[in-house]
């Protein structure tokens, strides 16, 4: 069952790269996100799965599609003919090497010792990783400021 999720994630990620139509490419990316969120659910991380599904597959795709509609839906060819022919070959070689390495090290790597987690998720987020929340608030404010700055309409003083 799990293998289908990993296959789906890989295939739709490849489609997102190779499709020339930007809209289809963005939709493929959203489908890959849905598969990734299913993997998160299967690995016992439902909260990360919900965030991946609602924010990455939902919100980010809305932003992507809005941008595509506001700009142009045409994607140019790869930069050079050499890149177009050589890089897929490099990619194929990489897949083969990756498969060999994975096969060679499978089950042999030693884990760094870690104490088994006993606290529930809400305790970890609100008590242990409290400082992350300050960073998240700062990030949200920085993002809002950046988007506002980019969409600022030119006032009479700037003209």
């Amino acid at each position, binding site marked *: 069952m799990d293998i289908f999720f990993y296959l789906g994630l890989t295939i739709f990620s490849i489609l997102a*790269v190779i499709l020339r139509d930007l809209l289809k490419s963005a939709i493929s990316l959203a489908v890959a996100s849905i598969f*990734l969120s299913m993997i998160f659910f299967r690995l016992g991380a439902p909260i990360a799965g919900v965030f991946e599904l609602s924010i990455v597959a939902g919100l980010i795709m809305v932003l992507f599609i809005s941008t595509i509609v506001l700009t142009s839906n045409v*994607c140019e060819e790869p930069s050079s003919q050499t*890149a177009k022919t050589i890089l897929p070959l490099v*990619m194929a070689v990489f897949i083969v090497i990756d498969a060999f390495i994975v096969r060679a090290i499978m089950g042999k790597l030693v884990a760094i010792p870690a104490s088994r987690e006993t606290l529930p*998720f809400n305790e970890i987020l609100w008590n242990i990783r409290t400082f992350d929340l300050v960073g998240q608030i700062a990030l949200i404010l920085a993002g809002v400021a950046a988007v506002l700055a980019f969409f600022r309409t030119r006032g009479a003083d700037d003209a």
Partner: protein
Amino acid sequence: MHNLSAFWTIQMGITAFLVFLGLYCLLTMRNLIKLLIGVEIISKGISLAIIATGAEQQSIGLAQSLMITYILAEVIVVATALAIIINIFRHTKTLDIGDLTTLKG
């Protein structure tokens, strides 16, 4: 200490593939939106690595809390990058990085 499972190794293989795919997209494509899609694919690989390692080490709560911070950072990066892309298109009427030869506003 224990040996990491075979399933975790396969997940890391998929992570490596996704990161490579994103880099391939960044190196070959000229369209700005496509480049951002490449960055997104790399970030999917990293997300998978965080959660898979958390599950393997039985620290899934910590992995999830890190994941939430990571997703938030990802959204801010994408929103800001798309705002920049829209502004570039307004100024130059193109999304081809080859045509962006000046920083003049």
